[in-house]
Every structure is written in structure tokens, then in C-alpha cells.
């Protein structure tokens, strides 16, 4: 801290600004420069059998305590609806299948990795970033625990270590970033026995989804959840039942950060409005000061008492 003198501070600030201007691999939520080959994952709920192996794999991959894989075949957990929390970043929920009661519908829940993520937009310290490959990741070292991301997310995904007094973390699916660096698939995709999770390029995965719906129109409803929802998401779903009955929030095509960012970023874009504002204020002050200065001199000349008081 002692080294951070005025000169050093200005240096770092200058570097920071120039880096921000040039742009790194991370991009802000409203930016459109995502990679053409960015990741897409299709959840085919018609193929999922609800074995919950993905839950086990996710926990193991993120070094959370996980019980034996065999214990995950317990179907009693489906009795109540579950959400991802700080101990499991993905969960499977069961829904009734009217077409065949013996084969219920299973829906996996995890971070959707939005194309235009609200959490990234809401994060005030830039701890959350949307990477070029489509994944939304976060940096623990930057996070200050404000939990704005939790409020911003329309899928209510980010979770928080409420039980930890010291060093609590924000948690959500990171698409197994560590595994992908080692050229491995996300843990849930790799373990799925039925390949209900199709991992590939978003464009390809979308066309696979369309083909599956076209090939089995009696099985699927004609809707790819996540294709357009809040500007599109990396995870997409196809199902044999309307998605609002599968507790997927009905969302429009408008992106969440679209309006808020337009205002916020407009105000601060290229630092022009603040500079202009301060310039305006400065000018006003300068003008005012000059006016006062003129009147002061007038007073000076007419008030002899003041001269006396100075002495």
C-alpha cells in the first residue's frame, strides 16, 4: 500500500483504461463480439432418464463432498422441487408425463450461460465475465460479496455461502472451465449415460435440436427453450411438454441488461458525459468566482472597515 504513491496510481489507472479500451478476451454483456464457435449444450428431456449422475459428476469435478454414485439412484429426492445451491451447482427435477406416466420428464437446472448475461452487467467490480467461448465465469479474488448477480439473474442461479462467516463465495456452473482447459468435456456431459446433454457449437446444437423436433413432432413441442429467451442462452432445452409446466420461467426475447446498460453505459461512455458535467460545473464555478471577484473588488473600494479588520 505504501508503494501506491500518486505516480504509481496514475500509471496503473492509465494502463487499466488503455487495456479496457483495447478490449481483452472478456467482453461486456451488451457486446455482440462472441465467437462463432461458442459453446452450446442441448438438454434433450425426452432422452434424460433422471439418473442424477450429472449431479454427482458436477460435485466431484468441483470438489464438493459427494456421496457414493449408487446413492444417487434414490428417487425420493424428486418429491420436492429443488434448486441449485452452494453444494450442488446442477440438479435434476422430475415432472409428470401425461403421455406415459411410467416415464416421467426430467429437467436439469444449472446456470444457462446467457448470451447477454444480467449477472455480468450487474456485477459492480467486474468479477463476472462472459468469455468469448460463451461461458460466464467469475473471479473470486474480485468478488466483494454484494450478491447483485443473484438479484439480477432471471433464472435465480448464482448461490452464496450463507453458512460461512469468513470468506463466503458466490457459486454457479462455470461449464467446467478447468476441465475444458485440459481438453475435457464438462463433467455432466461426459458422465450422462444417454447423452441427453449434447455438447457442441451453439449453431450446430441448435440445428440438431430443430432436426429432432422435426423428426419427432409427436414427441416434442415446437419450442427450443433458450434459443431466443432473453437474447438466447448457451444451454437449450427441448421437451414434450410446454416449458412453463416444467418450471422454466417464461421470458421474452429482450435481453435483461439491454435497457439498464443503455442508460448506465450511456452516462459513462468514454468518460465524455462526466467530463462534460464537471467541465460545466467548473465553468459555472469559474464564472461565479469571477463575478464574486469583481463584486469583491467593488466592496473593497467602498468599504474602509474591511481594510481595518485586516490589520
Amino acid at each position, binding site marked *: 500500500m505504501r508503494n501506491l504513491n500518486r505516480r504509481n496510481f496514475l500509471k496503473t489507472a492509465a494502463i487499466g483504461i488503455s487495456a479496457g479500451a483495447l478490449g481483452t478476451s472478456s467482453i461486456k454483456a451488451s457486446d455482440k463480439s462472441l465467437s462463432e464457435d461458442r459453446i452450446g449444450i442441448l438438454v434433450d428431456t425426452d*432422452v434424460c*432418464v*433422471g*439418473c*442424477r449422475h450429472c449431479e454427482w459428476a458436477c460435485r466431484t469435478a468441483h470438489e464438493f463432498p459427494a456421496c457414493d*454414485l*449408487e446413492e*444417487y*439412484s*434414490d*428417487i425420493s429426492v424428486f418429491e420436492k422441487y429443488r434448486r441449485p445451491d452452494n453444494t450442488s451447482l446442477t440438479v435434476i427435477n422430475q415432472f409428470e408425463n401425461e403421455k*406415459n406416466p*411410467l*416415464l416421467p420428464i426430467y429437467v436439469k437446472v444449472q446456470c444457462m450461460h446467457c448470451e447477454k448475461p444480467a449477472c455480468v452487467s450487474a456485477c459492480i467490480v467486474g468479477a463476472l465475465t462472459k468469455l468469448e467461448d460463451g461461458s460466464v465465469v467469475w473471479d473470486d479474488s474480485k468478488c466483494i460479496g454484494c450478491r447483485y448477480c443473484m438479484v439480477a439473474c432471471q433464472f435465480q442461479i448464482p448461490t452464496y455461502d450463507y453458512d460461512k462467516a469468513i470468506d463466503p463465495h458466490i457459486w454457479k456452473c462455470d461449464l467446467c472451465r478447468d476441465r475444458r482447459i485440459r*481438453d*475435457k*468435456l464438462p463433467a455432466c*456431459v*461426459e458422465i*450422462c*449415460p*444417454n*447423452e441427453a446433454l*449434447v*455438447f*457442441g457449437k451453439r449453431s*450446430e*446444437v441448435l440445428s*440438431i435440436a430443430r*432436426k429432432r423436433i422435426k*423428426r419427432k413432432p409427436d414427441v416434442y413441442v415446437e419450442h427450443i427453450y433458450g434459443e431466443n429467451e432473453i437474447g438466447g442462452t448457451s444451454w437449450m432445452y427441448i421437451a414434450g411438454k410446454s416449458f412453463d409446466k416444467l418450471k422454466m420461467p417464461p421470458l421474452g426475447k429482450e435481453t435483461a441488461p439491454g435497457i439498464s446498460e443503455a442508460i448506465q453505459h450511456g452516462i459513462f461512455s468514454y468518460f465524455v458525459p462526466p467530463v462534460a458535467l464537471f467541465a460545466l460545473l467548473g465553468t459555472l464555478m469559474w464564472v461565479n468566482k469571477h463575478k464574486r471577484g469583481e463584486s469583491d473588488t467593488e466592496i473593497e473600494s467602498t468599504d474602509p472597515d474591511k481594510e481595518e479588520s485586516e490589520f
Partner: protein
Amino acid sequence: MRKILYILVPLVLTFFLVITAALPQSGSEIQEVRARNTPEKSQINKVHDDPAVLNNSNLKCKTCHTSEYPTPKDPGLTDCPRENLVSVYQSPKEGPESVAIVEMSDKYTGVIFPHRVHAEMSEMSTGCAGCHHYNTSGPILNCRNCHEKSRNREDVSVPDLKAAFHRQCMSCHKQWSGENGCNSICHKRKDITKDNITSTNISKTHPELPEPGKITWETNSNINKTVTFFHDEHIKLFKIKCTSCHTSESCIRCHTPKVQSDLNKPVKIEKSIEEHHKPCINCHYGNKCTKCHSDKEMSPFDHGKTSGWVLSTYHKDLLCSGCHGNQMPYRKLGTKCVSCHRDFAAEFDHKLKGFTFSEAHSELECANCHVGKDFTKNPVCSDCHDDKSFPGDIPGEKPGK
């Protein structure tokens, strides 16, 4: 002189052009290509003329060929046509008894899949095509031929091998057991067992299904209460395949899931009126209600009683539709041979009756012996011979003599 040149030069040129075009030179290359491909031609025809291909109205050229103008040399075939094409049918006994699946994770042992019992069970549902989908008219392919081993791969539109196996097994087994785990029937954990392979149900076959004879139903109707269905007649006499009615039977059709003690107790399934009629209506579309619904139990079918014409020797084994057409109610036919066999006399081979004509008899007209061309009665010899009569005497020789 110049005028003649003006006419002659173009004439000669055209003649030359015609000659070059007509010469076999340019054609020889095509012929060569064809000759090179003749061994494959039978293969092409085998696929194109296959009934499974001919009768599948969903098939278009583009289903299998990607290129605009496929040639024998460059057919531009798609990897997987994704249309049900299986035409190679094997009975369960012809197929393998069991199949070893050894491409397994570190956690679980390999699996022995009892192929025969599954083939038997599939006979009244999807048949071979249920698992061996998109098989062309060639040999029956197994899962490994099309499904890649690696999950981390380029083309993710087709499921990988692990998924292909599991998708085939799990939808039925889950309905059957209601379980979500993987160790009950197929898998064992490597750290629990010493075996390298899990061999549950190996060489198990489905017990033979009891074939019902006559089934009667009492309906709620006031008139014509009783419906009699002769199951055995439909199989033996009318030669209808099991699969033409039993199209989508599954385990749970007969066995209640979960309750193992009730395995031998058939489950009564409530059906709507439409569903009840569906298997019959498929063929009996044009028949009146009274064809099946009557005030008392019906007696078995007898061609002699119904039509006054007893089916004998050659006619016994014929299919009903062979004479009566495919439309229900069946077309009524006359009792004379010529009412079906229009040019019966010209065609009939008397060897079928056990003799060949002697030279003297071979020149005769049919009506000379068969009075009034009525072939149902015995022929008459007394017009020419005083002391001969059929079948004691024959107008020729028995073959082999």
C-alpha cells in the same frame, strides 16, 4: 463455281460433324465406366428393388443421396439415411444368443446382453428394426458400426456408443422396474465383483406364449351381445402374421411392473371402443357389424358351409386374398373352375392328375371328355370307348412307366 463451293463446304463440314458425333469413340468411355461398375450394379439393384425401399413412401432420392446427380461411380451417399429401412429379417434363433458389450468405464464391468430373449420379445412389437434402425438392405449392422466410441467428437448429431446402448435399454427397463440406478440388471461395480463381465439373464429365453383358440366377449349392447373371435383360424387358416395385429406389445402389456410375484398374471387393460375395434377394422373395414357381433356364439369358419364349395387339394393352402381380392367384404366367386381360371383348359397340365396323354388323346378338345366343360364332374369316356371309365382307366400313361 463459287456458288457450288458455298453449298459444298458447309455440306462437307456438317457431314464431318455428324460422323464424329456418331462414332463410338465418345461413348466408349462411358461403356468402360459401366463395365468397371458391373459387379456393383447388382448391389445397387438389390437396394433399389428391395420391398422395404419400394414401399416406403417417405423415401426420396435425397434421403440416401446427397449429390444432385448420383452415378454408380459417385453415388454421394449420406452416412445415415435416418429412415427405417430394415428389410433383412432374422428369426430370434438365427441371431446371436448373447452379445458381449465390453466398452465399459473404469467403474463398471462389461455386460452380456441376452440378445435372443430380447429378439423374441421384440417379435410382437418393433421387430429387428426397433434396435437395428436405419439398416439398409445389406447385412444387419450392430451399434458399433455407426455410433462413435468417443463422446468428445466432431459430429454430435448421432449419439455416441455409450448413449446408443443406454437409450435402447433404459426406456423399457425404466418402465419395467421404475428404478433409476444402473446396477440391478446390467452393471456391477468393478470393486465389488471379481468378474470382468456381468452376465445376468444369460441364455434365458421367453417361455412360449400360449396361443388362444377361441375368444368370446360379452358386450354391453342389448342386441347381438356376443363377439366370437377365432384366434387360431386367423393364424392357421387365414395365415395372418402375429405382427399384423400385435404391432406394439411391450412387457408391461402382460406383466405388471415392479410386482414380480404377479409375473404370470396378465394385466387387464381398459381400452376405448376405437382401440378395441382397431385390430379387426384394419382388415374387416367393409364388413357389417353382424360379421362379428351376434346373439349367440359363432361357429368356426367352414368354406364348404358358407359358400357351398369345399376347399380341397390345391385350394386348401391358398391365401384368401389370392382368389377373393384384398377388399372386405370378399368378392363372391362362381363354383366352376373357369370362373377363376379363365383360360383353364388351355393351361391345365394333366400331369397334376397323375398322367400324360397318349398321342391319340392329346389332340382332343376339352369338351370331348369333360361334358359341358364342367371340370368338377368326372370326365366321360363312353362317347368313344364302351368299356372304359375314369378314374379306373386313364387316357394315357402314368409318368415313370
